[in-house]
């Protein structure tokens, strides 16, 4: 067992599960999407991205790119949240919530691809 692989798999899967946890629920209902969850998703995704740094394989390159996509989406979601709460005068509205959740949904898709690639790589190892 390679401890590096354990940590790597752990963070990639955790990124997906947390992302899913934030994503489920009515899309425009702020009660169904907690800010702590978004925070956790962002932190875990950042760590997962950095873990993928410095991998020279083709698989590593694709994994890094999916992570970067997820981060981009999540940063956009966080930015929208900050804008709604602190900058705009309307505060959090259902339409803003919907756009935040849909952005995180995109990030989740990227995380799904990451996990699928991880599974494929594991299956191809055959040992």
């Amino acid at each position, binding site marked *: 067992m390679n401890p590096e692989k354990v940590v790597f798999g752990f963070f990639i899967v955790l990124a997906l599960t947390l992302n899913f946890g934030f994503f489920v629920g009515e899309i425009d209902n702020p009660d169904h999407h907690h*800010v*702590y969850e978004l*925070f956790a998703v962002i*932190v875990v995704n950042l*760590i997962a991205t*950095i*873990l993928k740094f*410095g991998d020279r394989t083709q698989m590593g390159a694709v994994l890094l790119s999916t992570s970067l996509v997820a981060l981009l989406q999540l940063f956009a979601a*966080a930015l929208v949240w*900050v804008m709604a709460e602190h900058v705009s005068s309307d505060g959090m509205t259902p339409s803003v919530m919907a756009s935040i959740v849909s952005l995180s949904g995109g990030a989740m898709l990227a995380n799904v691809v990451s996990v699928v690639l991880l599974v494929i790589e594991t299956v191809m190892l055959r040992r």
Partner: protein
Amino acid sequence: MDNIFFIVMRRMRAPLITLISVYAIAILGLVLIPGQDAAGNPYTMDFFHAFYFVSFMASTIGFGEIPFEFTDGQRLWVTITIYTTVVVWLYSIGTIISLVQDQSFKQALREQRFASRVRRLRDTFYIICGYGETGRALVRALTDHDQLAVVLEEKWDRINTLRMENLRQFVPGLCGNAGDPDHMLKAGLGHPRCAGVVALSNSNELNLKVAITTKLLRNEIRVICRADSHDVEDNMASFGTDHIVDPFDLFSLYLATAFQAPCLYLIQEWLSGYSRDQLEEPVYPPREGCWIVCGYGRFGKAVYKRLMDEGIETTVIEMSPEKTGKPPGLCIKGRGTEAVTLKEAGVETAVGLVAGTDDDVNNLSIIMTARELNPELFVIARQNHQENKALFEAVNEDMLMHPSFIIANRIRMLLSTPLLSDFLGLALFNDDAWACELASTIAAVVEVEAPIVWEVEIDTATAPALCSAIAAGNTITLKDMLLSPRDREQLLSCVALMHVRDETRVLLPEQDLVLKPGDRLLFCGKPTADSKMRWGMLNENVLSYIKTGEAPPEGALWRMLRRIHRRPG
């Protein structure tokens, strides 16, 4: 590029993950701990403000407590996080800085820069492995003849010498191991413009490795190696190394030429470009009488053997004959720098002296002492180090042997004018009268300046005008190439030395020789003759002037007018 990128990425992993974790904990703590606003109402910080606060706290900027003054609970948490975040921040920055100063990172950067410079080369170039005395002379000789070179050298100070050198072309140099195929590839072994590899290091094994690497990775390009022992030479030749240069053998061959055919030796000196400015006078080493050879090392042995082959009586002076081996003839133990030893060897009655030790000071001292005892001596000196050039010029010996210089020039000749070495090889089969006649022809053509040598191949790339004239059914003779494009009554100041067609080599071809595409010619002459000759080869109108004496109209309209004008006549 990827290499450096990956080094940075790998090294930055741990500090970045620590930084993110500590930030996340600090932010989460601030969000969870209850605080109060200015009016005393309960208030919890949101993520936005927490992130803002931690960002400036960690980088020790510190804008104060925002958005409201902190409660004591919050201050307790902030006290803890200040220390952790600041430490982690310094740790990350420190890692980046140490990475930049890291030797392996710097070397990766240098290799990277070197490889990209080599990749950008757009002209043919040669890879020179080893930048010692010989490499330096070769690089200088190549760049002086407008050719590009790339240097691979193991020692740092030598690469620095290369940087300090004032060369006509920029020569990229890498401090690396030529035995490492990766470094060879970085130096351009896989580059389509790489024309040859020259292995000049002091180590025979390294030269061998370079030759093998090149022959395996790029079989078609030429490999020239320096070798000091016949054993290694045979090994190199076994897998197709194109040329193997042994300076001592080469010089003893020159010496034999000087004995047997002084004019040929003179031609050799002129054409191989030893002196760039003046034509040298012929030397006549005396054959009648006794010679003294000081130093019986590799050089001494090669010279001794040649002198014996010439049937010349020779005495050897050697410091430690038990180490070098005793020559079959007379051998005197001593340094040769003292008058006693030289007298014992019979310097007063000798005609020639070879100062051939591997120490320049000793060689100079031998020559000066011997000249005092016998001013008529013919002196051959061996110069080991470039920096002593002025001293050897001052002592004014009759023949100079500088191993590095000999190898460098020989290799430059092999690389830039391979036909010339063929020519000199074939010229050895002619007698000296032939060579004397040629020498006087060349001297008449070039007057006082030393001649330059150039090769011409009749193909569409270098001689499009000639090729199209031949294709149109005109006969082009060698004389057409030799006529001046300015005045066809006059010949260019050059001599056609050799004509090559399908492996048939003809020395000094006749002027009425009919040329065909694919022929190769070797010329020597004044530097200006080369460019004038190329004019006629490239420009159809110039060629037409040379052939017929009149220049055809250049534009389409004038050509049409001329046709109309001619028709009634």
